[in-house]
């Protein structure tokens, strides 16, 4: 696959990556480049393995084939200690926030600092308050994670992700399940963090408008392949039927509304409880 982005300036490169779970092929020989200092989005419908891709980049999963390079280092060739050193420079924002439920907001943000640095407590306090101020939740530092709303939890997790001043952040579905106000706050926050801290951001999302508004480059994935890529403008004008369906949210198109099944009438008239295996590949380009 050709890449229009030069690999010279990219922080993360994914080369000919294949990954499968059981018999299901999640990625089939995909290549992606993530440029330094830019916001790159990976879009695609649920179940296309977008989160899996982030876990592959973070070295939590191993690919069947291909390689992932982060800042010049092949993630899956590193020894454990080297991988952990690399991860200190990578932030990840989980969809659920993944805050530690047995400590309050302050201690959650302080957690990576306490684990990885020998800074005095007064310095940690300053840093934590700065990070919390950046996400606008300095006043919430004494709350426990179960007292936070979903949007607040995600912002706290973001403060924690930037606690060690990483070179990049991976966002896993940052906009899902947010009300319009916290969605707006998050969109603004991701953009401004990227610009002020000089981060490289990777956003995995299926929220078309919010993601397109802030990203510099977009990859659209489906069925384990890259089906479209380009700047938000190029993507919007893409001639690919598939990309058009995804961007406009049409119910039927190359991706079908129905999960693969046997003929409807036959199914109603037969007495079988389980559906037969359907071997036909569905919804492919």
């Amino acid at each position, binding site marked *: 696959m050709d890449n229009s982005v030069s690999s010279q300036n990219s922080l993360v490169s994914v080369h000919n990556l294949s990954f499968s779970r059981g018999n299901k092929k999640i990625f089939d020989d995909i290549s992606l480049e993530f440029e330094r200092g830019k916001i790159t989005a990976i879009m695609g419908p649920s179940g296309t393995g977008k989160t899996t891709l982030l876990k592959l980049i973070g070295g939590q999963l191993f690919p069947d084939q291909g390689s992932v390079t982060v800042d010049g280092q092949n993630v899956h060739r590193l020894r454990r200690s080297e991988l*952990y*050193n690399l991860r200190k420079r990578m932030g990840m924002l989980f969809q659920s926030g993944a*805050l530690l*439920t047995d400590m309050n907001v302050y201690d959650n943000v302080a957690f*990576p600092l306490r*684990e990885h640095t020998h800074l005095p407590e007064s310095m940690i306090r300053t840093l934590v308050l700065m990070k919390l101020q950046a996400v606008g939740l300095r006043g919430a530092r004494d709350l426990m994670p179960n007292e936070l709303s979903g949007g607040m939890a995600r912002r706290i997790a973001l403060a924690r992700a930037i606690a060690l001043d990483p070179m990049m952040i991976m966002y896993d579905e940052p906009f899902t399940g947010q009300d319009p106000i916290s969605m707006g706050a998050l969109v603004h926050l991701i953009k401004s963090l990227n610009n002020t801290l000089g981060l490289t951001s990777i956003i995995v999302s299926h929220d078309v408008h919010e993601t397109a508004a802030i990203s510099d480059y977009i990859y659209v994935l489906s069925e384990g392949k890259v089906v479209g890529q380009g700047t938000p403008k190029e993507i919007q004008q893409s001639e690919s039927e598939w990309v058009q369906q995804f961007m406009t949210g049409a119910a039927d198109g190359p991706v079908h509304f129905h999960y693969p099944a046997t003929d409807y009438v036959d199914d109603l008239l037969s007495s079988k409880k389980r559906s037969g295996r359907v071997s036909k590949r569905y919804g492919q380009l």
Partner: protein
Amino acid sequence: MTQFLQFLGRTTRTGFTKLGRGTFFLLHTLGGIGSILPRPRLILNQMYAVGVLSFLIITISGLFVGMVLGLQGFYILSDFGAEETLGLMVAASLVRELGPVVTALLFAGRAGSALTAEIGLMKATEQLSGMEMMAVDPIKRIISPRFLAGLLSMPLLAALFSMIGILGGHMVGVGLLGVDEGSYWSQMQAGIDFQDDIVNGVIKSIVFGFVATWIALFEGYDTIPTSEGVSRATTRTVVNSAFSILGLDFILTALMFGD
């Protein structure tokens, strides 16, 4: 027939795979203890959750087991006119067997299930995964201190159980049934051997603590990250711990008191 063989093969294979994963997990956990020792706060917090919060159930159970032992022992011993040795009987049963075994069973039910549910839910809510991405090894940071806490708490709880049990036996035997106070204590003092009884009992409780904590932590770490998965893992913790404790108790008893 082939189906049966298939089933047998599959079950054996999954069983051994799990045992292998469990062993790696244990080695990793033991390897993490070194880095946890300079941070006693982490261990103390867990000892509070695992040990101190189990005080109530251990104390009450110990008291009742001791009282029942006093009662039953008195009826049987008095048939032979040997009720003076009640103290020895109560203490020997508790220190050798009931203390370590019943404490371990209660420990698996009270603390083990809590550990499994906690770790399982941490996995289900991506807290473990999140820690990994923050370059913090969850086994070192989360599992090792809990393992050490379980290992240290079990012998202490078993000792507490035996002590309360002996007092319970005293309450019933001496207080209610009129066994001579002096002989209750002196028979115990004369008959209980430090090496044979107490040390062996402590060894048992350490082994049970090791196994019960290992099972609880591994089941939690290995759980399928759903509500159903956590519920099943918690059940497995209690059932597998009980089987292992009872089986090991038989083996240890045969080894220790066999000759």
